[in-house]
């Protein structure tokens, strides 16, 4: 597991390895990275490396009783806090502090992992402050978050921040191609992360259809054909039914225009690699700023979508705006 993570997150793991080797592991870390980056996994192996009975250098074995208990969340000295409903409440932090005021059960160190730490309520976050800075017993705190902006400055200044880089696009594409989705691998890789369980592989048929819809739609848009509104009504809305699906659809549309731009700039990594001729043609018709404007329209539509705007009106507005543009 350690080695696998090291391949995925070389910088973070190198940082941790060195800290352990030099016996300079901090008492509080903030792990920051996009959804899908292995923050929790790293937090767990880090905990394992502190308890494992058969350490190989700094690498935990993953087989011994300690490692297995941590992996399954049964270790008495490794606590995990998850949001209770929408937020992490103050009483959860208080419970944690109470737990930690007892001497540790078995080992000298106690570890707590706060999942989605940005979801702490203001009072929970403030409550954890003093505890984070001056714990009574040796403690390792790991806060996981997708967005450090919503974390108190005072918490950040008490901890070391490690940023997880998203897995590179090419690795993701390669992985999807291995899984046998040659045609839409570049799209899937842009939409989701094959390293995590929540990927879109099950929906690949749906995406293949969505993809051809996008291609049809953009062509009609750029030809300024009035047909586009019928396509929207008959096909697009029938295919991208609810809000989440529509969001994916808009993403697909966004990637198309992003590709246009890439083709214009002579870049190679396309989301629609087999449509290069069509993309080239379109890139020729459109100026750089026209493409940028189209992307902006799509992104704006995505924002409206988040505000629960009627999806049909939203799409109609978007398409008309795309057609109006020079």
């Amino acid at each position, binding site marked *: 597991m350690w080695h696998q993570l090291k391949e995925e997150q070389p*910088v973070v793991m*190198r*940082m941790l390895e*060195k*800290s352990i080797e*030099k*016996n*300079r*592991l*901090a*008492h*509080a870390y903030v792990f920051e990275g*996009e959804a899908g980056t292995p923050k929790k996994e790293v937090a767990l192996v880090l905990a394992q490396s502190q308890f494992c009975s058969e350490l190989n250098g700094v690498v935990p074995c993953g087989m011994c009783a300690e490692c297995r208990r941590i992996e399954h969340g049964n270790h008495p000295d490794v606590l995990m806090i998850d949001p209770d409903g929408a937020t992490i409440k103050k009483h959860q*932090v*208080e419970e944690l*502090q109470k737990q930690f005021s007892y001497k540790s059960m078995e080992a*000298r160190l106690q570890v707590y992992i706060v999942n989605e730490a940005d979801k702490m309520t*203001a*009072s929970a976050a*403030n*409550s954890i*402050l*003093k*505890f984070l*800075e*001056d714990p009574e017993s*040796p403690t390792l705190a790991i806060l996981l978050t997708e967005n450090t*902006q919503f974390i108190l*400055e*005072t918490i*950040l*200044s*008490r*901890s*070391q921040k490690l*940023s997880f*880089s998203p897995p*590179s696009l090419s690795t993701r594409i390669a992985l999807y191609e291995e899984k046998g989705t040659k045609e839409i691998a570049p799209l899937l890789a842009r939409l989701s992360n094959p390293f995590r369980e929540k990927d879109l592989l099950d929906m690949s048929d749906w995406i293949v259809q969505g993809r051809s819809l996008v291609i049809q739609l953009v062509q009609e848009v750029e030809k300024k054909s009035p047909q586009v509104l019928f396509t929207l009504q008959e096909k697009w809305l029938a295919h991208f039914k609810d809000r989440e699906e529509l969001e994916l659809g808009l*993403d697909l549309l*966004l990637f198309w225009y*992003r590709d246009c*731009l890439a083709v214009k*700039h*002579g*870049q190679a990594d396309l989301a629609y690699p087999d449509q290069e001729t069509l993309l080239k043609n379109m890139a*020729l*018709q*459109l*100026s*750089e*700023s*026209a493409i*940028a404007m189209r*992307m*902006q329209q799509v*992104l704006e539509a*995505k*924002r409206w979508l*988040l505000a629960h705007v009627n999806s049909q009106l939203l799409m109609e507005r978007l398409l008309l705006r795309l057609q109006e543009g*020079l």
Partner: protein
Amino acid sequence: MMNDEERGSRVSYKALYRVWRPQKLEDISGQTHITKTLQNALVQEKFSHAYLFTGPRGTGKTSAAKIIARAINCEKAPVREPCNECRACRGILDGTVVDVVEMDAASNNGVDEIRYIRDNVMAAPRDLRYKVYIIDEVHMLSTGAFNALLKTLEEPPKHAIFILATTEPHKIPLTIVSRCQRFDFKRISPSDLVARMTYILEREGWKAEEEALHLIARTAEGGMRDALSLLDQAISFAEETITVDDVLAITGTVSERFLRKVATALKERDSVSAITFVHEAIQNGKDPLQFIEDLMYYFRDVLLYKTSPSLDKVFHRATNDEDFQQFAEEIEEAWVYEVIHALNQYQQQMKTTPHRKVFLEMAFIHICKQEKSPSSQVVEALERKIEQLEKKLLAQNDAPSSPTTADRARAKPEKTARARPTQAPVLREEKARLQGLLDEASKQDLEWIVERWNQIRQEVKKKSVPAHAWLSDSQPVVSDGKRVLLAFQNDMHRNMVEKKFRPLIQEAMTVVCGQPVEFLTTLAPHWEKLKQAYKERHASDDTPREESDPVVEEAVKLFGSEIVEVIEDK
């Protein structure tokens, strides 16, 4: 001292900012206006019964509170600084004394906890002279708790003092503030941060590049604890000496050199390389949001420099060296304002979307495509006038210049009718022109014209819809900036464009490009062959092969080997 013991123990490594928490008032960096006042108050035993310490994170509020608690209880009091050696000081440091209470107001924010204090404060101290209540994060107290505290805070017993500390003074009721002596802690200046870090590094026996420390200090934004956390991380990460690259890797920021590269690309309106740089940075694991912020700060520094070169002390990203000065002087101030404005706008939008990279790219395109002129309305008006003038001029010129156009128009059909070597004179001219064009053509010129191609077509469409229709069959394939070669799929389209619409299209191109651009036409298959031949010739330039008749070669290049038939004269 206790610090040494702890540093010695292997089991519990302690963060630098905890090990090096100041133990004396004079150790607190960058807050002399506060420490002096407090020292004098301590010596003269004129300290207040309630203090309120406010200021951003990591500026020494809690540290100062703890020091005061020791100083007034020190056995050698009145003193300027606590001795940290007597029984009282040691007791407080160990936390074995019950009379100094450090309370976390965030966890104990109810009326009940304050009532507990109120009841306890009456009892005389057990081991020390004064009871000290340090209430940290005091902004988290509930309204009820604040009000319960009011009376005690106003008139506590002689043996009790309160020290309240918070990062958010605006959340404290005014009735509390007015009962305390308030001290505002400032952000610590980078030079103070560097001085303290250097001191610690010396004591701990580590080495660091001077520039790396400055980088840390800038990133810490005035918080000593932030600076020491980063330093801690850098020490763990670095091999021997802490280098700039180590710090850049930890903070996820990009180097100044890289920022300059991107800024220069923007300045030159070179969106392609700017976007390539972004791609590169993100591939290296940099955060787009952080990147756009760094860039904003860089341009801010440019603006500061333009305002006054002596402002370099408040520079955030840039160092005031020669390259920077030159860069700053070449930029228009109005443009910098616009860039910062645009970056700021995109940064706002970026925060709510997962497609950060896309926003960054759009921001760059937006900046690169901005018109250079400050007030576009005036320019537009002028442009319209010039356009009208140009039209008049062209109308006048048309009459005398028409023969040449007609000539060319006549030449074309001959050429397209599968040229034979007999038509040499006309051909040679065409050939030479195309050859010259190919030799002088460059990719930039082609991009330049392609970028405007859509506009040109729109311009044509405005004047004549059929012309636009005929033209849409063609693509610009090569250009040298003054001439452009259009490749048509269909011969009929080409003929129509050549015969009927040449002046009209020529004019549209002139209007859009702002300079006369001539166009030549060919057929797409011909172009493919021409390109192939040109490439082959260039490839074979290095390894000269057997020389053939230049005329034949040219002809082959132009029309392809299938069409050209070589008949020997003899």
